[in-house]
């Protein structure tokens, strides 16, 4: 019983971390319909950026994450502009090519990371990594607590941004009815570009969390395609609250399976859940699409 409680608690913490890592995709894919299979690759890229700053300049990983956030924002703006000009404009075949484009980009990022950093795992050092806290009979790694706190904060921040600020509501509006937004005099492309920029900027902190929680290596994005898309689809495209709930479900499921069946089944969990959701309830838990 204790083991189960342990697993559930770890699972919830892990789940919140998955939420932070997926929330950008909730915006770029969930709201903007961009087939962004390179999202996990961007995430890993960000975490290597954090590694670089931590390794070379001794900067705390979370601070490093904040530092690269503006860079990532600009990167996102440019990436969306390229995507839009090449694919969204052109009609029929765009879907196939858009997906292929992002797969290609993901692979390029992977290989560039291998060439520059090598295939070995990299990790960061910080005061909260390596220690554990005691809660009654449980020992919880401090880094998971940090990840939990930051992730929850990030998710709430983004959720508030989308619902309370003017720009955030504009983004939601564009996601629902682009034509209407255009008729109201706003430029939907600019809004979407801004949204994609934010979705990418978020990866600064998310990337920091990634390398805090566990070491990274260049092909880690493959493991996270399943997790991030599972979370976003389970959530119901575009729902921030749903992202958190779905991520926690995933986190708990993974931890329990890990405990029961061992690590060799772990990679399949997110994908199996994803397939299940797509088959049974494709609009997700809190979906908005009809």
């Amino acid at each position, binding site marked *: 019983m204790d083991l189960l409680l342990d697993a559930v608690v770890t699972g919830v913490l892990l789940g919140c971390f998955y939420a932070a890592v997926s929330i950008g995709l909730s915006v770029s894919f969930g709201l903007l319909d961009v087939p962004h299979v390179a999202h996990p690759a961007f995430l890993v890229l960000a975490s290597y950026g954090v590694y670089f700053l931590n390794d070379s300049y001794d900067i705390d990983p979370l601070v490093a994450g904040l530092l690269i956030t503006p860079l990532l924002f600009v990167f996102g703006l440019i990436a969306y502009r390229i995507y839009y000009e090449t694919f969204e404009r052109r009609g029929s075949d765009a*879907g196939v090519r858009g997906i292929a484009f992002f797969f290609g980009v993901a*692979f390029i990022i*992977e290989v560039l990371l291998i060439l520059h950093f090598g295939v070995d795992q990299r990790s960061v050092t910080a005061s909260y990594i390596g220690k554990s806290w005691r809660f009654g009979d449980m020992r919880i790694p401090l880094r998971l607590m940090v990840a939990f706190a930051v992730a929850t904060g990030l998710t709430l921040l983004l959720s508030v941004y989308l619902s309370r600020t003017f720009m955030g509501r504009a983004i939601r509006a564009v996601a629902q009815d682009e034509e209407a937004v255009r008729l109201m005099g706003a430029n939907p492309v600019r809004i979407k570009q801004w949204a994609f920029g934010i979705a990418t900027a978020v990866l600064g902190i998310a990337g920091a969390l990634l390398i805090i929680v566990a070491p990274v290596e260049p092909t880690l994005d493959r493991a996270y395609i399943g997790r991030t898309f599972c979370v976003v689809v389970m959530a119901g495209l575009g729902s921030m609250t749903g992202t958190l709930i779905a991520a926690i479900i995933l986190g708990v499921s993974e931890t329990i399976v890990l405990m029961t069946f061992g690590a060799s089944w772990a990679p399949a969990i997110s994908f199996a859940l994803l397939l299940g959701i*797509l088959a049974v309830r*494709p609009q997700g838990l809190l979906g908005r699409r009809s």
Partner: protein
Amino acid sequence: MKREGIAFWGTAVLFLVAVLAATQLIANEYPFFAGYVILQFIVLSVAWSILGGYAGYVNFGTSAFFGVGVYTAILLFKAAGAPLVVQIAAAAVVGALLGFAVGLLTLRMQGIFFSIATIALTIVIETSVTNWRFLGGAAGIQIQRPPVTAPFHSYVQMLVFVQALLVVIAVTIARYIQNSWIGRGLQALRDDELAAECTGVPTLRLKMVACVISGALMCAAGAPAAMYLQYADPASAFNLNYSVSVLAMALIGGTAHWIGPVIGAILLGVTQQLLAVTISSEVNVLVLGVMLVLFVVAAPEGIIGLFRKRRRAEGKT
């Protein structure tokens, strides 16, 4: 039409004769090792294009089908000592069934969901195979080749001829589909699935047909790989690199015509062999990724698209 048919069959027969002659005349095994890989990719790309190109459903599960082909061959060989022909035939059947199951599960999904679902399937299948002791688990399994049959002198040379046969089979099937009402229906549903459905095209049925045929061929292409490498492990057999390579080959070659994937596979296959030997296998993947992105952005209809544009510019309609 008739002339094109004669040209096609003539080329196919010549091709097979040439490969057979090469196995008898060339003693050095290296060209056959490289040739096998390229021929294998031709089969995979042509097979992929039946669903991915004609119907427009970007199947990212090539690695899954390939891996299943490899392990089906291993299973039959270990359990029953089955000969190569039976291994390939069985792999084709398993591939067809898997294609049917995948189609049933995923073809109702649009665009990216279908693609992600196919990745999901790959990982789930890979994980399952990794946990199957009889097939060697994560560590992999070694195979001992049976003695080679006449008129071949080396097993690899025989495998090359077998793959050459598979190439002819795959291309024949793709060509038939392309020129038939199946191909036209797939093209219509690729352009606009709803309009196709309302014009009388049984879209789900056609997509299933494409998925089953594509799956069978991809699995069949994977079966001889077990004997080729004499070793298999899940991480290599189900490596996502197969999915990306085949995707790139088909899209770069162009998917409107069956010859597109052939061109793409030869071009990229040769490049890969050269790069892997001369520089490194990482640069190999980098070049693949860069070429994929470049073509998808700048030449969406692939190499055959570029040819068609030039012909149109020169005044032919």
